[in-house]
């Protein structure tokens, strides 16, 4: 019913043609252009991590480690983990869509600290370079978790370079987080009260809190790891009475909340998309906002569930298990609220909605299997097996990456001023959903049957399911390469988008596509709550 409003005239002045030449990009302070810098760099890291994943899945087609040496395999899964966690998933939605949309959504001309924003991209790139150097200069085989004493006293390879890379990229996160929090607090347009903010902004805000509060603990942990490895200063070294379990505590104090850095922005995206494509106000707006904050808060209290069999006290384990169950409640609430939003809506099945629906399904399965691993006695069996691998890929790939794809398609017309080919996008969404399930569902069964993760060679009984998984991975690769092609195509050949092709609400849709350099000609004044769809449906 709204096809006709999707296209618009070619825009004249906007942020993309406001300056030309390399300097206009690499020295820009415009949050929209910085978002592009991030787009390009995280896409590069995504495909690098994906390449490592492809090789891992190829190796695992046969039970014997015959394609790669075990050394190469160990380095590949470490690279895959480090790149995907720190250089793709953590920065993914915040630094791209958050950067682009946050000022637009709060009605500001830019983030509070534009130079800091550019600096955090450079910091990200420097961290990335260190990691790439580590990958080239012999690689690193500790896994992304850097557990001591293996990482400090035993591992060969460029552990220091990789740890430095992660340490540096942590500061990029911190700076972005500070920038976002300050922006949301001080730069909201007149009339834009907290409970009129889009849930995407709430999600970015909560994510930034987690970044600011968790990342420094990772930084100091990596500093301690580095001094132990480089200077031989025992910190966790058991032979001096140090405790490797203490390292695990410090590491997971960051790395569990890091999961929420990945998933909270995804929840924000899905709230926007579901509401828009159901053409209806999000159900239970306040409950949704509070559950975002609750997840961010409780996310800090559950890290010990990574350590149920680590030699941690079993009573601490019981406490962490209970807290882990509590953190899953707000997630469950969110799923029901999204479903209720569909009720009596006008649901359209454009590609962003298909990706958002994939998110709902896959996040549900990932979340419920998370309940399995939060259950103490079951985690004893599941810990460090493919069950856990499947669980967190359902959350991170099925959840976060699906939402990233939804966001990419949803805001593509706004960001580029072009429409993407809808048919191909739908095909890609369906291929990704099918390929994802084929890749990762078998891994649940493998884990339950006892296949440990990070195994280069495995017991023959596990082969059949591994073959399924690898077949799914190749589908997944197609599903992710397809958008790369048609989105690049659309940059040149796509139809010009109107200001509001989805008939959506929100301040970002009130400005032309692509937005002008200063975002708003006049500071907007907000008089409605978010998602005012019901007024004209």
């Amino acid at each position: 019913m709204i096809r006709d409003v999707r296209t618009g005239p070619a825009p004249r002045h906007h942020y993309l043609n406001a300056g030309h030449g390399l300097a206009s990009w690499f020295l820009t302070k415009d949050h929209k252009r910085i978002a592009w810098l991030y787009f390009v760099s995280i896409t590069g890291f995504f495909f690098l991590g994906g390449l490592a994943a492809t090789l891992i899945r190829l190796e695992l087609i046969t039970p014997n480690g015959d394609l790669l040496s075990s050394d190469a395999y160990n380095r590949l899964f470490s690279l895959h983990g480090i790149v995907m966690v720190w250089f793709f998933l953590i920065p993914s939605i915040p630094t791209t869509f958050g950067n682009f949309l946050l000022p637009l959504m709060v009605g500001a001309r830019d983030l509070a600290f534009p130079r800091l924003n550019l600096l955090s991209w450079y910091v990200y790139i420097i961290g990335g370079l260190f990691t790439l150097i580590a990958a080239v200069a012999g690689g690193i085989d500790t896994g992304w978790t850097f557990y001591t004493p293996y990482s400090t006293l035993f591992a060969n390879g460029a552990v220091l370079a990789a740890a430095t890379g992660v340490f540096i990229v942590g500061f990029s996160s911190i700076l972005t987080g500070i920038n976002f929090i300050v922006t949301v607090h001080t730069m909201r347009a007149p009339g834009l009260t907290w409970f009129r903010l889009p849930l995407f902004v709430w999600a970015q805000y909560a994510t930034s809190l987690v970044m600011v509060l968790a990342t420094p603990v990772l930084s100091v942990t990596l500093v301690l790891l580095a001094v132990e490895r480089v200077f031989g200063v025992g910190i966790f070294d058991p032979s001096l009475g140090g405790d490797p379990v203490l390292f695990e505590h410090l590491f997971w104090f960051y790395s569990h909340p890091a999961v929420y850095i990945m998933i909270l922005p995804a929840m924000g995206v899905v709230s926007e998309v579901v509401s828009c494509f159901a053409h209806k106000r999000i159900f239970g707006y306040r409950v949704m906002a509070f559950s975002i904050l609750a997840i961010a808060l409780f996310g800090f209290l559950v890290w010990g569930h990574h350590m149920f069999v680590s030699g941690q006290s079993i009573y601490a384990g019981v406490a962490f298990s209970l807290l882990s169950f509590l953190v899953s409640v707000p997630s469950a609430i969110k799923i029901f609220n999204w479903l209720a939003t569909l009720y009596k809506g006008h649901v359209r099945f454009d590609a962003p909605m298909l990706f958002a629906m994939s998110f709902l399904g896959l996040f549900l399965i990932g979340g419920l299997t998370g309940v399995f691993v939060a259950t103490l006695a079951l985690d004893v069996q599941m810990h460090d097996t493919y069950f856990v691998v499947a669980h967190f890929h359902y959350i991170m790939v099925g959840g976060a990456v699906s939402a990233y794809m939804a966001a990419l398609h949803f805001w593509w017309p706004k960001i580029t001023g072009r429409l993407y080919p809808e048919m191909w996008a739908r095909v890609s969404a369906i291929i990704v959903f099918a390929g994802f399930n084929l890749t990762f569902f078998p891994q649940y069964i493998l884990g339950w049957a006892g296949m440990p993760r990070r195994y280069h060679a495995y017991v023959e009984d596990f082969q059949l399911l591994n073959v399924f998984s690898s077949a799914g991975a190749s589908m997944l690769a197609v599903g992710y390469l397809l958008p790369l092609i048609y989105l690049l195509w659309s940059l040149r050949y796509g139809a010009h988008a109107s200001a509001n092709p989805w008939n959506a609400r929100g301040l970002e849709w009130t400005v032309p596509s692509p937005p002008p350099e200063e975002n708003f000609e006049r500071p907007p004044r907000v008089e409605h709550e978010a998602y005012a769809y019901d007024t004209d449906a």
Partner: protein
Amino acid sequence: MSRPRHDRTPASATGRFVALYVVLLVLLAANMAGTLLSLGPWAIPARLAVAAGMVAVIATTFMRLRQGTVLVRLVAVMSLLWILFLFVLTFADFLTR
């Protein structure tokens, strides 16, 4: 060009800064002198408490938390809360092993 309220410190603040600086020195001296007493199991809590007092003085006076906005005070409290999470839950392991 209105100046933010909390930006401006009254001229009398100099006296307060110096007075609290003296308080800090007294606390430091007390803490150092405390090592000469044998307080038994109370030694560590006592020393940490005095140090916490010094931290509180610096934060409220030199960092002007007293005049700070609610938001800034909230931020300061939040950092304490999160440090508490880190300590309490980690010690939950080490104390019950």
